[in-house]
């Protein structure tokens, strides 16, 4: 049909070599090394559309959530009461350790980077990113509300908070904007010295990120990577414990943060994996979630749990280049061993006309 485009026919061979790319159906079923170079168009091999614009919308939602949360903190900072920390069953019964917060944040960075790696190596990364960003956006919005409505005093009397403006009237918008920029540049971590505005206790963003990191790694990495899952679990648990012994948050903040993150994750993913729950009706109470329509828009073309396939996130031309390199190397290696092997793989590569190079000798062998 397409004049000048090579038609490649690949018959399955003994050692399963498909040459790395022409036949989309065969190739992408392979995990592991060869699968990493498989082509990954907007319609993936499992017929799951990636719809990158929805991921973009999700990113915008997350960004707006982050701005909402930092604005809320900038304003809440002014209202932090100047009283002793509240009685807390964990904070009052463990020895205060100042470096705990730094350790917790380092663990957060490790957990987040690992989760990012897992997602970027996943074939359906755009869909997963869309989900994670949407959930994070929701959680940041919830946080913006909860820390603003009732303000708890500092849990750690030794933590340095920026002095308040002591303005009885509302904060000028410029001051808020400046604070928002400082907070965003710090990404919510205290380790870089940017988190100098206090009052963001209920609920704990650290716990939320640690929990999310574990959930992402558990769900989207290969099922048999037990070591990774357990390490991620312990990272998250130790991260929360370190946070508490450093008096970074009250216990109730961590509890609520854990509860809200896991519940939202469970509900969203169960909805996304089930056809019947994507429709309204008396059988489905989860359609009362305020974000249900957004969920429907994002997930209506996704049929069930995402298959665990992995690939390197390179642009297509680059992947094609590497694939060609690999194919050339492989076929030359095979030619070298042709005499030594009894059976030869059946690889029929038929190219028609056009575009110089790429003319392969047809190799057929009856076995």
């Amino acid at each position, binding site marked *: 049909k397409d004049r000048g485009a090579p038609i490649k026919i690949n018959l399955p061979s003994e050692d399963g070599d498909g040459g790395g790319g022409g036949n989309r159906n065969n190739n992408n079923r392979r995990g592991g090394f060869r699968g990493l170079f498989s082509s990954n168009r907007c319609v993936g091999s499992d017929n799951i559309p990636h719809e990158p614009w929805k991921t973009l919308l999700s990113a915008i939602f997350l960004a707006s959530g982050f701005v909402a949360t930092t604005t809320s903190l900038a304003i809440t900072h002014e209202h932090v009461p100047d009283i002793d920390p509240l009685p807390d*069953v964990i904070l009052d019964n463990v020895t205060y350790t100042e470096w705990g917060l730094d350790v917790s944040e380092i663990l957060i960075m490790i957990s987040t980077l690992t989760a990012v790696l897992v997602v970027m190596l996943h074939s359906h990364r755009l869909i997963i990113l869309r989900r994670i960003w949407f959930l994070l956006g929701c959680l940041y919005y919830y946080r913006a509300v*909860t820390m603003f409505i009732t303000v708890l005093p500092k849990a750690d009397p030794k933590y340095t908070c920026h002095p308040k403006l002591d303005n009885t009237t509302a904060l000028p918008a410029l001051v808020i904007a400046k604070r928002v920029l400082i907070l965003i540049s710090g990404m919510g971590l205290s380790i870089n010295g940017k988190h100098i505005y206090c009052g963001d206790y209920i609920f704990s963003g650290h716990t939320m990120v640690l929990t999310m990191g574990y959930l992402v790694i558990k769900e989207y990495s290969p099922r048999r990577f037990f070591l990774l899952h357990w390490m991620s679990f312990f990272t998250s648990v130790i991260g929360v414990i370190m946070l508490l012994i450093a008096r970074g948050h009250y216990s109730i903040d961590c509890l*609520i943060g854990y509860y809200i993150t*896991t*519940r939202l994750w469970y509900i969203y993913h169960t909805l996304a994996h089930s056809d019947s729950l994507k429709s309204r009706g*008396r059988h489905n109470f989860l359609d009362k979630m305020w974000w249900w329509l957004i969920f429907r828009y994002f997930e209506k073309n996704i049929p069930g749990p995402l298959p665990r396939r992995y690939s390197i996130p390179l642009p297509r031309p680059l992947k094609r280049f590497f694939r060609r390199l690999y194919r050339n190397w492989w076929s030359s290696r095979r030619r070298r061993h042709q005499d030594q092997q009894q059976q030869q793989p059946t690889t029929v590569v038929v190219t028609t006309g056009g575009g110089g190079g790429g003319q392969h000798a047809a190799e057929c062998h009856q076995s």
Partner: protein
Amino acid sequence: ELLKVFLSLLFTIFGFLVTTVSLALTHERMPDYDPLPDIVLDNTPYQKWGLDASEYVLIVLTLLAIAVIVFHKHRFVVIRRVFLMLGLLYFYRAICFYVTVLPKADPAYYCSPQLNHTITFVELMQRCVKIISGGGLSINGQQVYCGDFIYSGHTMSIFLAFFIIREYSPRKFWYLHGVVLALAILGIIFLLIGRGHYTIDVIVAYFITSNTWWTYHTMAHTQVLHEHGEHNYLTNHWWFMGLYYFEANVPKRPLPREYNLPIPDSLATKVSELVNRRGSQRDGYQEIV
């Protein structure tokens, strides 16, 4: 399946007891600070009658919810569900207000003086009895132990009653649903202006109650959500086995909205026979059975 009803009742009672013990202990740890800054409490005028009004609303809604359950044909299924959820919500509450104790939201509220020694078992039991006799309401003067802020039991009960009425009463009673919703919101407003709770308590209570209700009912209505698997995260809830056991013999679809008098079947048939015979004699119409 009365055994299951009994078990769920035990679960609720256990949850209630745990909450009571937790409150008796939390009272001792309540700090003597000024109320925390709160967006609603600081910007609305304090009304002393607010808490009482919200409790009257709560009583009305609870009675309505009980009436709906009593007249529902599948009352035992509904009771089991409600008890399981109540027990669960009480447990969560017991943990939440114990771990971090907030100061009194209403400086004018009378709280019993704190003991200056570690509480003994006998004193703990005495307090529990006092709290239970009040049922968690302040209007009877028994709620003198403070500190149970996060999260609000009043909000939880009000919204639970609203959800029960909305789900299990006839669908055409939409005006009732509207009235109940308005009452619920009014109850929350009264609670806040009476400084019974902080705003965060109310929000968290609404979130937990609504999420639990919706998750439970979606699972009860969908067969595929009773099976473990990659498609189903909801089995990760710690109470999933309870739900699985209670809903084992209930068909996995919404309960049909059918109503009848809560009397034994034999009595019901006799009554309806009597009524039919009386009616047919009056009309002069012989009913051939």
